[in-house]
């Protein structure tokens, strides 16, 4: 329903000094819903929130709030209020005056201000705190004041920028419940930004998973959790086993050399896919009765369940179970059909521009020379397209390679880690059996026969 869309973002792109913070984002937010923008730091979620608030102007794209184009509308004229990450309470005003700030600007009658502010103090459980100074409050109390200060203006939308980040775990859980209660009670649309997947799953009606300025998936928490669209979402939302497989036909998937029944369809015949299996969906059974058997390599008690790693012929399955299994024990693994979630394969490859120098027998990528074959048909300084398979990219210590970069992200794909190395111009995708820390400096080597060149003009 069109009228249901309170906020609409169309083709939002934001560039900062040539790097893309948001890439053509389309999103609508329904009236009265609790929507969470979820993603790792630097994914553009805060930028998106600030664009809605009006603090950031998008490079291109349209923001509609209640059907009105917000182009050129400054923050103070928008019907939205923000709860800032570090609260941003005014230190020169007491609690009452902080909350009354917005109403006083609108020249509301004194009686109304008093009534509404006190009602807000009650809503956030801070009755009688009006005369206190901000620095006399604890972090959790400051948080509540920040929420009250925003809500008292009866905004159409409340924007919350990682508001629970600074709180300790217990307080955080309490505030999650309380925020949800307030949102239901007031019926105001909440747009919540967080990098905490658990928080997102607990509170939201809708979750928007973002990565590198691109929306990965939009859906209800259960959809996001049970049917992640790609390995990134699966990996980011909870732990998972991600296994390469082949979709033989509808409801039949082959992985690890075995065919399993599943509940997914519509992928076509014999299509390469990624299979996601949540650790808690796997059952530990008697090895004699199971199709997959292996040896327990580690057991960690997590409070409610045990996290058990089972080595089955080289692949380690992560299993969450309330039953204990001893290290070294032979166990069987059973995967029910509805535990198998199929994702389209995201085939990552490296495709770069390279400057070709046949006279030297070299091509230059990221201003670093690589020895290459088959350069005869090119002229010096010609730009060609070079393709390098991620598994052929060799990661070495930075001092052993001419090309170095920093690890941007590292993701476990079942059999290996896939990670992105950010070099001078390009982001390289590489596979490795070893885990790399984000921000780690690594060197990149590629053998001459693994550089596949093609003419850009063809």
């Amino acid at each position: 329903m069109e009228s249901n869309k309170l906020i609409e973002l169309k083709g939002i792109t934001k560039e900062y000094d040539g790097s893309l913070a948001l890439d053509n984002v389309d999103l609508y937010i329904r009236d009265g819903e609790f929507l969470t923008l979820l993603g790792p730091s630097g994914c553009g979620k805060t930028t998106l929130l600030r664009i809605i608030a009006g603090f950031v102007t998008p490079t291109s794209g349209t923001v509609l709030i209640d059907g009105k184009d917000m182009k050129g509308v400054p923050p103070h004229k928008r019907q939205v209020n923000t709860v800032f990450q570090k609260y941003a309470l005014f230190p020169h005003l007491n609690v009452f005056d902080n909350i009354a700030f917005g109403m006083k600007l609108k020249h509301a009658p004194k009686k109304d201000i008093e009534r509404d502010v006190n009602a807000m103090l009650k809503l956030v459980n801070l009755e009688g705190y009006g005369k206190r100074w901000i620095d006399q409050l604890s972090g959790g109390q400051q948080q509540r004041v920040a929420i009250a200060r925003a809500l008292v203006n009866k905004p159409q939308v409340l924007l919350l920028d990682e508001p629970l980040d600074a709180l300790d775990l217990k307080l955080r859980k309490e505030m999650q419940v309380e925020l949800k209660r307030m949102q239901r009670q007031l019926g105001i649309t909440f747009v919540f930004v967080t990098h905490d997947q658990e928080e997102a799953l607990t509170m939201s009606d809708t979750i928007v998973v973002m990565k590198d300025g691109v929306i990965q998936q939009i859906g209800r928490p259960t959809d996001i959790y049970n049917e992640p669209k790609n390995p990134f979402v699966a990996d980011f939302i909870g732990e998972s086993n991600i296994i390469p497989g082949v979709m033989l036909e509808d409801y039949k998937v082959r992985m690890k050399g075995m065919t399993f029944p599943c509940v997914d369809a519509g992928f076509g015949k014999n299509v390469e896919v990624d299979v996601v299996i949540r650790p808690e969906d796997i059952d530990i059974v008697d090895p004699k009765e199971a199709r997959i058997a292996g040896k327990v390599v580690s057991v960690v008690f997590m409070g409610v369940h045990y996290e058990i790693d089972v080595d089955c012929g080289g692949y380690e399955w992560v299993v969450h179970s309330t039953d204990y299994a001893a290290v070294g024990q032979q166990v069987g693994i059973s995967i029910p059909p509805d535990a198998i979630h199929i994702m389209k394969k995201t085939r990552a490859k490296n495709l770069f521009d390279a400057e070709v120098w046949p006279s030297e027998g070299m091509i230059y990528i990221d201003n670093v020379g690589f020895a290459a074959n088959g350069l005869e048909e090119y002229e010096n300084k010609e730009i060609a397209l070079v393709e390098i398979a991620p598994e052929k990219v060799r990661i070495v210590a930075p001092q052993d390679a001419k090309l170095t970069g920093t690890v941007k992200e590292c993701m476990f794909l079942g059999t290996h880690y896939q990670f992105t190395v950010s070099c001078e111009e390009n982001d390289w995708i590489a596979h490795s059996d070893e885990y790399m820390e984000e921000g780690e400096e690594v060197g990149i080597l590629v053998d001459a026969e693994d550089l596949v060149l093609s003419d850009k003009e063809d």
Partner: protein
Amino acid sequence: MKRKVFAYPYIVWMILFIVVPMFFIFYYAVNVGGQFTLTKFWSTLTDVKNNWLVLWNSIVIALKTTAICLIIAYPIAYILSNMKKSVAGFISLLFFVPMWMNFILRTYSWYAILEYFIPGLIGKPEVSFTGTEFSVLLVLVYDFLPFMILPLYNTLSKIDKSLIEASRDLGANPVKTFFRVVLPLSVPGIVSGITMVFVPAITTFTVPFIIGNGVFTLYGSKIDEAFHQATGVVGDYAVGSTLSIILVICVLISTLIMNYFDKDKESGGQVL
């Protein structure tokens, strides 16, 4: 408490160079030729026309200097605080480079500009721009402006930018944001800026002496005059000391007023 030992040199220093000189000032104020007498003290205190009027002039000039400095410095500091740190650093350096030059040298340069350069420029060498209130004020503002900019810049650049965003978010336009958030939060900078300009301005001697050109006299010159009596022999220490005591009390009062405002801020109270 062994640590107290480290405070001893400072205490000795204080006694030698602050308490003892103060004592001497009081001593000379009531002592003429080795005789205890209050006559000079009283006559100085009651000489309204010569002393109190000049003091009043000095206070007015100091207030004017402070006000003009504040009006000029605030926008500069505000603009600087919103700039990139590197650019702001360079521009504030431009304001401070003249400060590395000797104070008297700078004042003499202004004398040359006002006495010779500008009259020459407008083709009327017989006119002099020195010896007027305007010229003294001009040079005082020039000399003390950096002392106003620096504390203001420090305070303004420390204001959390998210507070300004919060104010905008709550419906305040940029002007209202300035008066309701930025200005109240910059009061500590204003207070220390005022203190750093007003106190030296009221006690200044060099500027009225050189730029005042013997025509425009301020309190600092008055004290100097008392110690160097026209004869050039030995000045009237009793008169000079009494004048100094009055000035010390003036400075003390203004400092107390400023401290009151600063305290008020710390406890979180609203100044405006």
